């Protein structure tokens, strides 16, 4: 269809419209063509989060480290927080994005209280809402670089859910992010095979064991951690826990050289 001596640019299809052979940026989608894009990679990030459902509640644990690449930069970062009496949230991934979403959720809870809503935000609703937010951001190529675990109660049933930066979401009885998926989840499943319903103490010991193994095997893990226990009575967060003294390094005495 090319006419010699005349080029296509002389005949635009319609002003401001698409040019054949070129990318077209749809109007209203400012994220694509302005130079401003953030979170295509995480900067300060948190590592695994582990959660499990036990007989009488749900438990969540996360360590307190913000890693700046390989530097253990911020060693007292709180990655776990209480949303309402029925829900707690912990995130791994970019800490700035976690702080952002935490403030949005806290404002949401405040709005509910001020608006006189009698129905408190529960874990199932939070999980659903978070999935939609994260999926929407991903669809606009501006993700919140997070892997979240939502724990709590939904209509008197214990609830534990996972949401991803690309909008993957599911519920399960044991959930973890990052390295936790590879180490902690099999450990929890093995314990459940032996005993279906774990008690509160057993659950806590199991979670601590999981975090210990993660501290051994994950380069980005730290020995200070937080643990949240959600029961029908409410949410208790244990801060400033330290597992360094419980770690076992005896095997180091038996190794000499590399052969």
């Amino acid at each position, binding site marked *: 269809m090319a006419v010699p001596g005349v080029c296509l640019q002389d005949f635009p299809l319609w002003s401001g419209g698409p040019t054949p052979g070129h990318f077209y940026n749809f109007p209203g989608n400012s994220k694509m063509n302005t130079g401003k894009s953030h979170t295509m*990679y995480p900067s300060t990030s948190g590592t695994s989060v582990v959660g499990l459902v036990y007989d009488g509640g749900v438990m969540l644990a996360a360590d307190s480290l913000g890693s700046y*690449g*390989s530097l253990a930069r911020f*060693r007292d970062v709180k990655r776990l927080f209480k949303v309402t009496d029925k829900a707690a949230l912990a995130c791994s991934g970019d800490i700035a994005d976690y702080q952002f979403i935490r403030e949005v959720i806290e404002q949401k809870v405040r709005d509910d209280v001020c608006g006189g809503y009698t129905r408190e935000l529960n874990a199932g609703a939070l999980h659903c809402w978070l999935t939609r937010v994260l999926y929407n951001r991903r669809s606009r190529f501006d993700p919140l670089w997070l892997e979240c675990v939502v724990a709590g109660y939904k209509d008197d049933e214990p609830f534990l859910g996972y949401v991803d930066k690309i909008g993957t979401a599911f519920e399960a009885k044991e959930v973890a992010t990052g390295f936790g998926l590879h180490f902690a989840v099999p450990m929890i499943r093995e314990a459940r095979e032996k005993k279906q319903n774990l008690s509160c103490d057993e659950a806590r010991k199991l979670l601590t064991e999981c975090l210990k193994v993660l501290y051994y095997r*994950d*380069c980005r893990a730290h020995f200070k951690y937080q643990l949240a226990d959600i029961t029908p009575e409410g949410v208790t967060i244990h801060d400033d826990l330290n597992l360094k003294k419980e770690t076992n*390094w005896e095997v180091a005495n038996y190794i000499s050289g590399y052969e």
Partner: protein
Amino acid sequence: MASAAVAGHSNMKSSHLASLTPQWMNSEVLTGTSIMAVEFDGGVVVGADSRTSMGTYVSNRVTDKLTRVTDRIYCCRSGSAADTQAIADIVSSHMEILEVKLGEPPLVQVAANTFKEICYNYRDMLMAGIIVAGWDKSKGGQVYTIPLGGMMVRQPIAIGGSGSTYVWGHIDAAYQPNMNQEETVDFVRKTLTLALTRDGSSGGVVRVAVITKDGVDRRVFLHNELPEFYQG
């Protein structure tokens, strides 16, 4: 294969490009590490952490990075685990033959120079940062550092590995010449603890070896017994 930066580790800015290939293909086994050696009157103290990482996975949390070259010469290895093990084996074998020829233990300087020959001549193919330290009867305790390009220099105190970046300031401020043996061991233990708590590629226990004319005294400071510093 991704060209890694000095003595390991992840450049977070390259992570979005690295997602084009699976991470296990880019992560050779590295001793991203904290190592150091200090001379004192009568010998040397060498120390290292014990973490070997493959990407962000700790493949060995109790590694021994203090490798025997001869009875009185040890080397601390950082960089690629395979490269440094191969080089250490070669130099150790050369020193064994040399000992038979000379009828006496080889000098630390000779071992260090042998390391340097290999690290320099094959510099484009290797990723090895090595600290050679030991005792011999001609110059007493000596520490030689051989960083990535294959240069060699003798220093009273040498640090290396990815964790060393966090303790340059500390050694500048806290190192005193003419410490005795126990003070030197304590200094090495404190410095390595500071390095390994900040560096994600270092961790585990602190292994220390004291080399004097009487032999080698190996010690391990288990992780839960390390000194505590500011935890912010």
